[in-house]
């Protein structure tokens, strides 16, 4: 987005954007109904995940196909410590940072043995890692019941800020503010914080080191970059974004089960990053919003098929997957740099013909 040059213009655009974001959930609810506000909430969570994965894939160039595992780890570490499962009810300001740390640790655990791997090998190992985590989540109800197995964990505490319980409905200036709205603002804050953090990282010494590794690892090493530590840092940092959004997801849903952390979800986050534009934060957020919202739009295809052909030929969920697959193939063929790429990445991906 190109901002007007003058300061006043910048301020005007900023204020307009802030106002728009502030009324967005209420406007959406009035126009399209509450389910779409939930969709927006989901899009925000996925934006955070995509921003996290972008650190690993976009900046450092390490393709991670098991990213949803960190989301799961964050969600479970929140759920176990704020639910009747063990009778523990820690507050969110302890648990969200804890989720970031735990997910970050797992990021290092995944990163350490795979440091020497590149490209496709790394993709397969991370994919395996994601599946291993899910298999453990499903099976760790024995010998002692840690994760409650496939049933998952229910009655997870909502986030409470002071006496304000985000899951309850309040009246503010005559407007009903329900859970979906309160969480919208919380998620929005977290996404904005993630964007700022991520942009600052990109321009930092570490960020430039990641980009150097992505472009040529040997050269980066020769320039004195400690590639081992810097790559581990990419895994840990990316994972911690996933951990925080996992915690938010658990508190928002009030329920988690291994079903939410499947390989397809990992691939979907990769799609978001690739479609939006690897390494470019605004592009990645765009990708996350598009890929969360468009499948919801496909719901309307079902009645359309019904009225056109008299029966439903393609289940919307399958249609979504078919379009995902097609989008990945077509993007790599015709626009590998993504819909909204960063300048540098655009040259890189188009140049090597």
């Amino acid at each position: 987005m190109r901002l007007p040059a003058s300061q006043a213009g910048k301020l005007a655009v900023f204020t307009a954007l802030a106002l728009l974001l502030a009324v967005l959930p209420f406007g959406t609810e009035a126009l399209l109904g509450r389910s779409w506000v939930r969709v927006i909430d989901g899009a925000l969570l996925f934006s955070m995940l995509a921003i996290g994965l972008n650190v690993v894939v976009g900046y450092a160039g390490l393709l991670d196909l098991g990213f949803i595992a960190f989301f799961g780890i964050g969600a479970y570490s929140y759920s176990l410590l704020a639910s009747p499962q063990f009778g523990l009810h820690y507050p969110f300001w302890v648990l969200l940072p804890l989720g970031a740390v735990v997910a970050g640790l797992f990021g290092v655990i995944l990163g350490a043995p795979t440091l020497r791997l590149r490209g496709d090998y790394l993709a397969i190992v991370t994919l395996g890692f994601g599946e291993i985590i899910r298999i453990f989540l499903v099976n760790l109800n024995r010998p002692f019941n840690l994760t409650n197995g496939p049933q998952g964990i229910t009655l997870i505490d909502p986030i409470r800020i002071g006496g304000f319980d985000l899951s309850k409905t309040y009246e503010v200036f005559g407007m009903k503010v329900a859970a979906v709205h309160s969480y919208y603002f919380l998620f929005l804050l977290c996404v904005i914080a993630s964007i700022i953090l991520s942009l600052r990282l990109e321009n930092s010494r570490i960020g430039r080191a990641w980009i150097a590794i992505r472009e040529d690892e040997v050269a980066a090493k020769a320039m004195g970059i400690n590639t081992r530590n810097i790559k581990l840092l990419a895994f840990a940092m990316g994972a911690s974004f996933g951990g925080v959004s996992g915690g938010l997801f658990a508190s928002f849903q009030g329920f988690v089960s291994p079903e939410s952390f499947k390989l397809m979800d990992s691939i979907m986050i990769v799609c978001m990053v690739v479609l939006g534009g690897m390494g470019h934060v605004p592009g990645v957020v765009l990708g996350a919003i598009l890929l969360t919202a468009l499948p919801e739009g496909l719901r309307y295809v079902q009645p359309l098929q019904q009225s056109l052909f008299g029966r439903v030929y393609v289940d919307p969920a399958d249609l979504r997957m078919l379009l995902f697959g097609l989008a990945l193939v077509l993007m790599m063929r015709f626009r590998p740099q993504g819909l909204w790429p960063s300048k540098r990445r655009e040259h890189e991906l188009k140049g090597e013909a």
Partner: protein
Amino acid sequence: MDTLLQQIINGLIQGSLYAIVALGYTMVYGILELINFAHGDVVMVGALVTYTVFSFAAAHGMSAGPALVLAVAASIVVCVPLGLFIERVAYRPLRRAQRLAPLITAIGVSILVEYAAALIWSKQYLSLPELVKPTPIQIGGASTSDLQIAILLISLLMMGGLLWLIKYTRMGKAMRATAQSHDLAGLMGVNVDQVIAFTFALGSALGAIAGVMQILYYGIGHYLMGFMLGLKAFTAAVLGGIGNVQGAMLGGLLLGLIESLASGYIGDLTGGVLGSNYRDVFAFLVLVLVLVLRPSGLMGQKSGDRA
């Protein structure tokens, strides 16, 4: 002792199927340095075509022999063009692209094939009509069947055939040359595009037969069955040394054995704490361990920073 023998037999049979699928991965990787994610799904298509043929045969009172021949022929006729189509449309335009692009394309193709199969065959678990009735055979207290022994023998036969093809035919020589360098092979008069297409066709044909045997062995097909199978076959290829044809065979058999023995004995070893539901974890553990300790695999040459 009986259980040990039984686990070994089970492991060898599943392992031989892994090995054949692994050949598809390793041949393509050897030539293109590309993980063809969709290969497992090609195997799935072969299995589900068999399901269709068998359903048709059962409805028309066909006997097992002709139905089996028809199933093998049909799955090859479907899978080979599918493999060629995937290569032509998805991978060939990206042959000189940056490394990440073909990999993402491969994932996309895999999703496309899976959900196209879901449209054709539904998302149900499909149980194969029981046309082929295996005769049980007892070997030293362990039970197997003529079907299982046939699977093992056919797999070994196909591996032998492939080795012969690669070692002694003109096309095999061209494949080896192309694997070393596309450009130089081209300069020597090898039609590189043709060789790569042939590799995909060959891998898909092997995959089709593997699909037929897989569904005969388990009796159940599913549109996502190719995913785990493909992943394990890839693990087998890595275990043997990716790009190495004998390695893929050895890796497949070994992985089958490891999986079968590990999931058979893990309950006893850990006092019942961990059960055979951790079966799928072993393949990944093997994969990670091989990549960390010996990335070139059991039979691969040390080639520096390949991995």
